């Protein structure tokens, strides 16, 4: 008699070195679709784990906080896909991926809106002193000390955006509604926008009141916002960073803020997270957030769907949903 039993479906394996923040929501939702190889749960060192258990693994899930180095990639001879939960790619050795033919999919532009919202929120907070005023009220100082010191008007300010990708464009769209004028610097001039373009960050800084950093971290952009750029921005200038800490020379930024060389900053990213320079804690003209520009409830739902869709496409030999050109 013919064997009537269906061939058991093989659940494809997905390697996870260390869990991205989304993992605790993603895993339970997709347990029946993917078998997660959880390297961090193993008592043996990661390198050994990879050699022992991951030789046949074709796909990996990572966050923006794990460094996917050539060394790690070498221990994954069957790897053909890396899906990262970030939009940034600075944590992945892209040339090595290109050489090996490993495809990369990112979180694309699904959270550009959330990040842009956070950028505007930080900017309004710095200029209008929302967080420090809230502290003032909660400390009971309003009845004692009277009115809070004045802030700075946002309308009419010149905003310079570093990196006019998806996030930069969403920031521009929002700030225009507040009466700001927009200019930008980017790797290349964008024909689709009419905002004034500057070749360099220093020229941009010299012609704006507020710098919003929205670019990727690469070798070219590392420490791009340096002493000269901050000096060009000037004493009334404000810096907002919702990108990567490495784009700014953090030591120089701190010095400028402490010495009043720039007027204020709203920061969601730092060079050595979660370390935040202690000098910033004493300043009232700085708003600090813990790299959470992305972390909203909608981001979570959309991200889980996008990750799963990318893995499913890969395992069914269909085109990836949000591939990155590397």
């Amino acid at each position: 008699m013919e064997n009537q039993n269906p061939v058991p479906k093989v659940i494809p394996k997905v390697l996870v070195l260390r869990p991205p923040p989304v993992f605790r929501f993603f895993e339970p939702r997709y347990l029946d679709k993917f078998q997660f190889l959880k390297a961090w749960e193993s008592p043996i060192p990661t390198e050994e784990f990879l050699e022992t258990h991951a030789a046949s693994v074709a796909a990996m899930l990572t966050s923006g906080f794990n460094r996917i180095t050539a060394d790690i990639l070498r221990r994954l001879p069957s790897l053909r896909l890396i899906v990262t939960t970030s939009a940034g790619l600075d944590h992945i050795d892209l040339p090595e991926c290109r050489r090996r033919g490993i495809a990369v999919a990112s979180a694309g532009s699904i959270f550009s809106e959330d990040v842009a919202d956070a950028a505007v929120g930080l900017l309004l907070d710095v200029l209008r002193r929302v967080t420090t005023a809230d502290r003032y009220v909660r400390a009971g100082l309003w009845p004692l000390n009277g009115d809070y010191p004045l802030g700075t008007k946002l309308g009419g300010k010149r905003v310079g955006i570093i990196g006019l990708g998806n996030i930069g464009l969403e920031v521009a769209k929002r700030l225009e509604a507040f009466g700001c004028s927009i200019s930008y610097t980017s790797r290349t001039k964008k024909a689709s926008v009419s905002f004034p373009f500057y070749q360099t960050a220093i020229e941009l800084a010299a012609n704006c009141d507020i710098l919003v950093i929205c670019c990727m971290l690469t070798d070219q952009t590392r420490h791009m916002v340096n002493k000269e750029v901050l000096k060009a921005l000037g004493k009334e200038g404000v810096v907002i960073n919702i990108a990567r800490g490495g784009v700014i020379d953090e030591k120089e930024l701190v010095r400028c803020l402490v010495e009043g060389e720039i007027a204020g900053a709203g920061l969601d990213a730092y060079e050595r997270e979660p370390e935040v320079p202690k000098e910033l804690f004493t300043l009232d003209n700085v708003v600090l957030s813990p790299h959470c520009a992305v972390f909203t409830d909608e981001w979570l739902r959309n991200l889980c769907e996008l990750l799963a869709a990318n893995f499913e496409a890969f395992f069914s030999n269909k085109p990836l949903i949000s591939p990155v050109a590397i």
Partner: protein
Amino acid sequence: MEDIGVLLRFPAMPYLDQELDKHFKLFRFWDVSENEKEAFLRKNSGSIRAVVGNASAGADAELIDSLPNLEIVACFSVGLDKVDLDKCKEKGIRVTNTPDVLTDDVADLAIGLILATMRRICESDRFVRSGKWKKGDFKLTTKFTGKSVGIIGLGRIGLAIAMRAEAFGCPISYHSRSPKPDLKYKYYPSVVELASNCRILVVACALTEETHHIVNQKVIDALGPKGVLINIARGPLVDESELVSALVDGRLGGAGLDVFEHEPVVPEELFGLDNVVLTPHIGSGTVETRMAMADLVLGNLKAHFSSRPLLTPVV
């Protein structure tokens, strides 16, 4: 004009105080202790021909009656709830305010409060400064883009808030005394219906006898545990004790408040809550805007006393 008495009801910014002092005979009424105010008025009322008030203190019937030579009340605010307008009309006293110059700043702060409340910006700043980030990530917050925004009062400020929220992809609805057919926003004939149909309710209307406690328990309940209330208008528009208990109980999702019923007193129950943002009436509080407001006050006074048309008359 140096002999024209001007009664100043609040501690004005240096520029305004200096200019008033330079051009008029300035009486700093805010600096007179409570038990000496009556005597002060009796002594000086004859020479007082103008009152400069603000959101906290203006010209009520009692004060107007005690100033027989009062000709003009110049408000350092756009709100007129502290001025007895009927009495002024009755006595032919002119009233001016500071519209338009502060519209952008107040609308900006409304959006700033929405973002601070929904994205927990103040709380996350506390999280970083207290060292908690070293122990773990911050929580998920609530996305603002695309959320429905309901505005009570679609005047200058309400419209400016709507324009900004639209840039965040928010569908806009509103309630006002009468619908505005020129606008593409959805109108609701009652505040309760508006609150039932939006995630973020923004109070942007004038405080009058009719609008006192317009945001009451029914409205707060309709807004609900996922709803956010933003008030950049006047404290008494909201039933504050209902609001506090709803926030403490979790029946209302969150609130961003720039105004309170008894400023500068803020209910202490709110101090321990992470889902509220509290600012000390800073809606127009930027250097640029306060200068523009001061210039309007000065301009209106000078115009009146040189028999020229007022810049921004209300009455």
